[in-house]
Each structure stands twice: as C-alpha cells, then as structure tokens.
C-alpha cells in the first residue's frame, strides 16, 4: 500500500505541475453540453425554420377560403409558410424541394361542406423530406377535422347561409337583407348553445411539457429553470461520462508512456512490488476522476443550478470512476505501446459513448442497438446521473445503475490490475 501511495502521490503531483490536461477534462463536458443547449434550447427565442406549404385552391369557395385563412392564423403561421399556387406550380415546387408538401382543395369542396356531403382535402408529400411532409399532413388532417366538426354543428345555419349567398349573387346590391342575416345569426347561436354542453368547458386540456419535468410552459420547468438549463442538464451526464472515460484513458496511457521513457522500469527496479506500482497508477486515476466529478458537480450546482442528492451523486461517481479505471487498466494491459493503447482505447470509448447514449438519446437508435447499450459503462452512468439531476432521486432510485457500475468496477479493476501486473512481470 505504501508503494501505491507513493506512486499515486507522484502521479498527482505531476498533474498538478502540468494541469492543462486536467483542466480540459473538467471544462470539456460543460463546454460541449453548453453548446448543445445553446443550439437547441434558447427558450423559444430561436427561430425554427418554417415549413413551406403550397396551397392549391381549385374550389375558390367560402370554406376553401376559410381553410387557406387558417394557415394565416398567428399560431399556425409560426410553423407554416403558405403560398397559393396552381397544381402544376405545386408539383414543380415539390420537385425542386422548395416546399414540404401541397394541400389541394378540390373543386366543389365548399359546396360539399355546406351541403353536408362527404368531401376531401388532398395532401401531396415531398418524398425528399422526412419531417416537413408529416407536419403538413398533420396540419391538413387537423383542419379537416375542424371543418368537418363545424359543418356538422352548424349544418342548419350553413345551409341557410348558402341559400342567402346564392340569392345574393342574383340581387342588385349583392347583400342579403338584415332579417336574413339576423336569422342566420340566431341559428348559429342556437347551434353553439346546443353543442355548448358538450364542448365547454373542455374535458381534456392540452398541457405542454418536456422530458425534464412536468411543465405548462415550454421555456421553463416547474422550478423556473429556463429551457437552456434543462437541455444542459439532460446533455451533461452523457458528456461527463465521456469525459471521465477520456480522463481514465489519459491516466492509464501513462503506463506505456512511462515504459517508453524508462521511468516505469526504474520504479520496478526499486525495492517495490509491481502490484503496488499498478495500484498506484489506478488510484491516481480514480482520485483524479473523483476530483473532476466533484468539480463538475460544484460548477453545475453553483453556476447553473443543477441539483442532485449529494450522497447518491458521490456514490455514483465513485462507482463510475472505479469501472472506467478498471476497464482502461485492462485495455492498456493488452497493448504494446502508447500509440496502440490510445488508438484502441479511443475506439472503444467512442463506440461505448455512441451506444451508451453520450452522443444521442438511446431511444433514437434502432431497438437492437438499444440492447447493446446495456453493455456500456456510459449507459449506466448516464442513467444514474440523469435520474439524480433531473428528478429528486436518492440512492434507492439509482440502485440498479449503481450496482451495475460497482460490480463492473470491482471485476474490471481486479482483472485489469492482474493483467497489468502479469504484463509487467513478464519483463519490460
């Protein structure tokens, strides 16, 4: 143990004398998470590109104008930008990938609606796009539902309105009489009154929320944290686990590096056991991991309002650092040079980070890939850290990832230290 202590102390002193790498390990997760949060979570201030829609009005009637006008409503206009075109022009715009789709209002649409006959809206999707056409289709079906509902509820006044409009076209001043208008208004009023007991107040109200917490506002959570911080908190665990793995890589790469410089041979020529030297290297890596984790937690808590149960957080950090140290010790015990080790370890870490959810949410990957995530350290680390940061969870709630990481850490540390010791004893 004395040897391990001496080696660990020396390794940490070297890092203290040359702290750039440690600072990078500390800053990296914050910078990267911050950039992602800035890109995707500016509290609604960011202007999402509007979806371009071509509107083909082959009807030109009253209801068709209502459909066209729906896209000009403020809430809809935030997301859609429409242009009135002919069908040929719509096809040309789709072929030129200038619109996500076209909504065609067929001839006779208004008459059919006003007469209560079945009709349709036609949507032409742009096959070159993925999300936009779906949104156009959804918007069209929502309008169809609204128009259909309105036509059913207001069938009587609509029929009267139609008759009035037809008659008005033949009159001199094109305007109906006050009595006809008043009659239609009274019918509308009766229809609304009749439907009112079903429609008001609404039984189901739409509540907007996000993955972080229940919320009724899109740009902040229940605790008032802005969208930026929510996304930051969501991304940070992935970046933190990646950074801790890279940190372990940097520390355990010291073994082949010191072998090439002769300092490790010199340590092994001293009156010490090789196991002491190996454990010293592992301890220094683990201590640095804990320091970086603590620093990340402190910065997160003080500057960004990220909160978590302290005991659970410390336990999870220790478990993850133990697992990453053991794992990287094993990787570097089977390589013959620093370059070989760095290459192999980098590839393994990148793959684990990809599959484990450090870069992308796991549920956005195919199901068979999701299952592979269970075999990565990142997955369990992210799961635990995210639970702690985004909910008021304690040790009990993160028991599963904690146990998985602890067991993995113990096993990989034992196997890794044994393999490294064996390698050193074979001769350097």
């Amino acid at each position: 143990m004395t040897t391990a202590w001496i080696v660990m102390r020396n390794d940490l002193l070297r890092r203290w004398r040359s702290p750039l790498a440690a600072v990078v390990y500390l800053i990296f997760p914050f910078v990267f998470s911050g950039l992602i949060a800035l890109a995707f979570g500016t509290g609604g201030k960011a202007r999402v590109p509007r979806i371009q829609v071509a509107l083909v009005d082959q009807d030109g009637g009253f209801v068709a104008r209502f459909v066209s006008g729906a896209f000009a409503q403020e809430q809809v206009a935030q997301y859609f930008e429409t242009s009135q075109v002919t069908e040929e022009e719509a096809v040309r715009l789709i072929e030129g990938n200038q619109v996500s789709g076209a909504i065609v209002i067929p001839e006779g649409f208004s008459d059919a609606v006003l007469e209560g006959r079945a009709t349709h809206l036609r949507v032409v999707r742009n096959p070159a796009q993925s999300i936009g056409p779906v949104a156009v289709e959804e918007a069209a079906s929502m309008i169809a539902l609204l128009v259909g509902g309105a036509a059913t509820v207001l069938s009587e006044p609509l029929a009267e309105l139609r008759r009035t409009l037809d008659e008005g076209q033949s009159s001199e001043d094109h305007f109906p009489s006050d009595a006809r208008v008043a009659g239609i208004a009274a019918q509308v009023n009766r229809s609304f009154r009749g439907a009112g007991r079903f429609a008001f107040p609404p039984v189901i109200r739409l509540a907007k929320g996000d993955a972080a917490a229940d919320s009724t506002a899109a740009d902040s959570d229940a605790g008032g944290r802005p969208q930026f911080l929510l996304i930051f908190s969501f991304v940070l665990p992935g970046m933190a686990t990646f950074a801790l793995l890279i940190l372990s890589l940097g520390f355990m790469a010291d073994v082949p590096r010191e072998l090439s410089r002769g300092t490790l041979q010199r340590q092994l020529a001293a009156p010490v056991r090789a196991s002491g030297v190996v454990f010293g290297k592992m301890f220094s890596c683990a201590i640095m991991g804990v320091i970086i984790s603590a620093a990340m937690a402190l910065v997160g808590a003080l500057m960004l309002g990220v909160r978590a149960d302290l005991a659970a957080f410390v336990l999870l950090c220790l478990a993850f650092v133990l697992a990453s140290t053991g794992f990287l010790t094993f990787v570097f015990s089977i390589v013959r040079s620093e370059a070989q080790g760095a290459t192999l370890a980098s590839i393994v870490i990148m793959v684990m980070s990809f599959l484990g959810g450090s870069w992308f949410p796991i549920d956005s990957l195919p199901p068979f890939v999701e299952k592979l995530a269970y075999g990565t350290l990142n997955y369990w680390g992210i799961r635990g850290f995210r639970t702690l940061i985004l909910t008021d969870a304690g040790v009990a709630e993160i028991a599963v990832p904690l146990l998985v990481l602890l067991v993995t850490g113990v096993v990989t540390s034992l196997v890794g230290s044994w393999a490294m010791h064996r390698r050193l004893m074979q001769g350097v």
Partner: protein
Amino acid sequence: MLSVEGLSRSFGSLQAVRDISFRVHPGEIYGLLGPNGAGKTTTISCICGLLRPSSGRIELHGTDLGSQPIAFKRRIGVVPQEIALYGDLSARENLSFWGRLAGLRGSALQRRVTAVLETVGLAERSREPCRKFSGGMKRRLNLAVGMVHEPQLLLLDEPTVGIDVQARINILDVVRDIARRGTAVLYTTHYLEEAQELCDRIGIMDKGKIFAEGDLEHLKGLVGEGQILTLRGGFAADALRPVVAADDTVRIVSLEDGAAMLDIPPHRGEVSSVLSRILGHGLSIDDISIQEPNLQSVFLKLTGRELRD
C-alpha cells in the same frame, strides 16, 4: 560483492546473454565493454530484476535476487541508459520520489536528497522543473537518482551517451568518488577510452558472451607485449599470411583483405624488418600505424571485429 554465475537470458530463439559469470567487489568499478547489442543492457536488466534470467544465479553480499528480490533491490541503485526522470517535476521532487520508493523517509530522505544534489552539482537549480535542464544536467540528475539511497551496488548502463566532454568528465568523477566510498560499480559502455580510463577491471563482451576479463594490463597482455602494427592497402589476406608466418616472433592479431593488425616484438628494428619483407613480396601498403596494445586491439583479437563508437 556482486556475484553473477552462469547467467543466461533468451528472447525466443535469440540468446541475448550466454552463460556469463563475473564478480564486482566493494569499491571496484567493473566495466562491461562491448558494442551495441552485445548483451550489456540485458545483463543489467537481469541484475536489477527487470528481466528474469533464463538460468544462472545473481547474489549481492549473499542475498539472492531470485529468492529475495526486494531485499536485493534495496541494496542496488540503477542508472539506466535513457534519462528516466519526470520532466514536470523539479530535481528535488524527482529525487524525493525515487528516494521514497527506495525506502527513505522524513529527514533522512531530505538529507540524502540535498547531499546528492550537491554531489552532482545541481543544488542551486534543484527547484526548477528538470525539463529545463541541459542534456548534461539531466544525465547528472539521472545518476543522482541511482545513488540517492546509498546503494551497495550501483549499476550504470552507458550513463554518458550523448553528452559533452565536460559533463562526461563530471559524471566519471562522481562515479570514481562513489567507488572510493566503497560502493561496487558495474559500468557498461562501448567507449574504449572511458573503460580504459575509469574501470578497475573490464569484461570484454560481445554476442552475449564475456570473452575475457581483467584489468587493463592483463587484457593488453592477451594481445602481446610488443607493438601493434596496423596495415591498410591493396593486399589479399592469403598473400600476406605466409609472409608474416615466416617470422615466428610476429603474431597476427587480425587479418582480412586490405587490413591487418600484427603484434610485433618490442625489439629495435623489428618493425622495419617486417615491413621490408612484406614490400619485398610486392604487396601494396597504403597506410601504416604503430601503437601500443590497447582495448581496441584486445577487442579485435578476442572478437575478430573492431569496436567502434
């Protein structure tokens, strides 16, 4: 006393060290002289426990390396060929680390660190990161690390490679001083002059074997007591051999086409007599040199090839 008996070490089919034996007494500087690849570093690595010998026995004052590695290593200091230091740490921090590993603690450690810093002339710059040091200073610190815990045996593996003359002289002085205090020193080198100047006894090593060992006079005696006549020219070895063999007093040290080294008796006129005979047989000589026997001629005689720096 270091005792190496029948030491061998193989790497697969390559036999790097072949059944070598030698002893180094307290206060003695024993040089292992040989070209690169002779097996010197492998021998040192076996003695300091980095490589397990394929066979043989290594003892220091009765402590066996194989059965008591920690006790054995506590008594030795190692100065490797490469500069095995931490550049980010100061000279003092480097020495403290290696001293701790060797078992020193507290005030004893600080006292020894200060002492060796003064010995190698780095006391004034002891707090600077050693990456800022010159090559010679790093070499001196490398040497200081090996002696910080006052070992009974100091192993030096080519400690003067790549440094200037001044630093070399300084290191050799320190090594002499260590030996004077009773430390046994095993010193490997491929510099003839260094071995000649520094070592009390020398082992001539090549291809994993020690061909001969002894002090300089003894080794020179292996070549002969006369002068060494070196010839270069356009002659064939087969043509020169019978001419030289005709004189019983002349011995061939080495002979190949265009180059010969002959041991000539130290009698007056002997050299001119030999040269007259050779030229009389119509052999072409372009270059002649006459010198006293030295390690170069010893090495050439023993191994059949020249030892070049």
